[in-house]
Every structure is written in C-alpha cells, then in structure tokens.
C-alpha cells in the first residue's frame, strides 16, 4: 500500500468522533467505588516496588563503582579494598569477643 494511501487512511480514522459516555456512567462508577471502600494506602511494600527499578539500578552502579575502584587501586599498588574490609571486620569481631 502506498504511503499516501496509508496516510489518508489515518487521517480519515482521526475524523471519527469519540462516543459520549452514557448519562449514568459517573453514578455507576460511584456505586462501584462506594462498594469497594476507601482507597488502599500506599504501603512501604508498594513504595519499594515502585522504587525498585531505580534502587536496583543504583545498587548495580554502586557495585560497579566499587569494583572499578578496587581494580584501579590494585593497578597502582594501592591498598586492597577487600583486605581492608577483612581487617576492619576482624577488629570489630575480635574487639567484640574481648580479644
């Protein structure tokens, strides 16, 4: 089908007027809403689910930055992040055990 003909088809379809809602529609919805009760509060789980893609992306970026930082430090013979963390955790654990 030619492009001009396709465009003509779309233009004609656009001209179709939208149907009007029936007179009683808002009342029908109101009755349904009244049966359902108060809207659900936005729970913590809902908020987390809503934020999840962003939180997941932020976590991935953070992990990548840490890995990149560790790699760069090891290239320039800097302190090993993994070793530093292990030493710190030992200090806390040993200190906690009174050693």
């Amino acid at each position, binding site marked *: *089908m030619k492009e001009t003909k396709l465009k003509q088809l*779309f233009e*004609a379809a*656009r001209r*179709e007027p939208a149907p009007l*809602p*029936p007179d009683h529609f808002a009342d029908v919805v*109101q009755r349904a809403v009244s049966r*359902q009760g108060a809207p*659900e509060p936005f729970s913590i789980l809902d908020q987390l689910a809503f934020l999840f893609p962003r939180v997941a992306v932020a976590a991935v970026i953070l992990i990548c930055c840490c890995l990149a930082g560790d790699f760069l430090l090891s290239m320039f013979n800097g302190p090993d992040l993994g070793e530093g963390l292990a030493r710190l955790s030992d200090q806390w654990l040993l200190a906690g055990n009174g050693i």
Partner: protein
Amino acid sequence: MAQSDDAELLDRIRGGAVDEFAELVRRHQAHVFAILSRYERDAHRLEDLAQETFLKAWKALAQFDGRAPFEHWLSRIAVHAALDHLRKQKRSRNEIGFPELGEDALEWLHNDAEPGQLEARDARELLDAAMQRLSPTDRLVITLLEIEECSVKEISALTGWSSIAVRVRAVRARKRLRDALEQLEQKNHERNETETTL
C-alpha cells in the same frame, strides 16, 4: 485552574469525601472514553473498560503525587487498561480471520489510482480489521502515534517505554500494518472472485 480544581477535589476525596469521586469521573469521563474508544468499539465493553480504568484510578489514588496534571496520570492508566484489554482479546481469539468489509471500504482499498474520499467509519473498519493481525503493543503504538498523533515523548510517558523502544516498535508496527492491509485487500479480492465464479 482545572489542575487546581482537581487538586482540591482530590484532597477532599482522600480526606474521606468518597462520594465526590463521581464529580472527578464526570470531569474526565469524556477524555477516558475518547482514549479507550480507539481500542474497543462495542459500547458495552467500552463502558466496562472505562469503569475498570476509573476503579484502578480509585485504588491507586494514594500514588498520585500531583506533580503532573491528574488527566495525564489518568490517561496513563487508561492506556495500560487498553493494552491489557487488547492482550486478553488476543488470547481469547482462537482464529484470526479477515472480517467482511463494507462495500465503500473495499472499493477504497482496491482503488489505488484514485482512492477518493474515505469516510471515518470506513477507515476505522479497515484499520480495525488490519490491526487484528498486529500484536497488542504494535496496535497501541500505531494508534497513539498515527491516530492520536502523540509524539514519541508522549507515548513514552504514557506507556513507560523508552523513546528508543517506542521508535523501534513504531517502525515495526507500521510495516506490519501495511502488510496486513495488503493481505486484507488480497483476501477480499479472492473472495470476490470466488463469489463471481459461483
């Protein structure tokens, strides 16, 4: 002004004035029907779909933060409801045949040299017949882009898809629509020839 009116009404509804939700529906029902009528032509099913949209909006009212106009947020819910509806229709449809088209629509379809004016109703009939061959997402993109004349950015905001995904889907959907229209023309031509022979 309309945005602040909606904001005040929403505050009252969220404050407990549940009965005022009907007023919110009255303000936005024409807009919701206009969106959904592009995807469902049967009056009863359209009304059910519109009701479903407003009920979803009611359930999710706590999530509306007021940063964008309420109508935009509601439009997004309507578009998602339309997409779910198209997916359900696709699943329940066992066989996708080509429906019978009206004479005027057929004549326009066959006439490449001077297609002539096409009535809106006939255009919708042709498009609906061809779009049955498209996936729900393709149908949604084509409808938003070509019939609603939304920009890529607007479609992205309505659907949650990236702009790149919208563009890729639009190119693919347009090609598939063109193929479907050509098949429609071919099928009806064969059917006419068979009827003439008989």
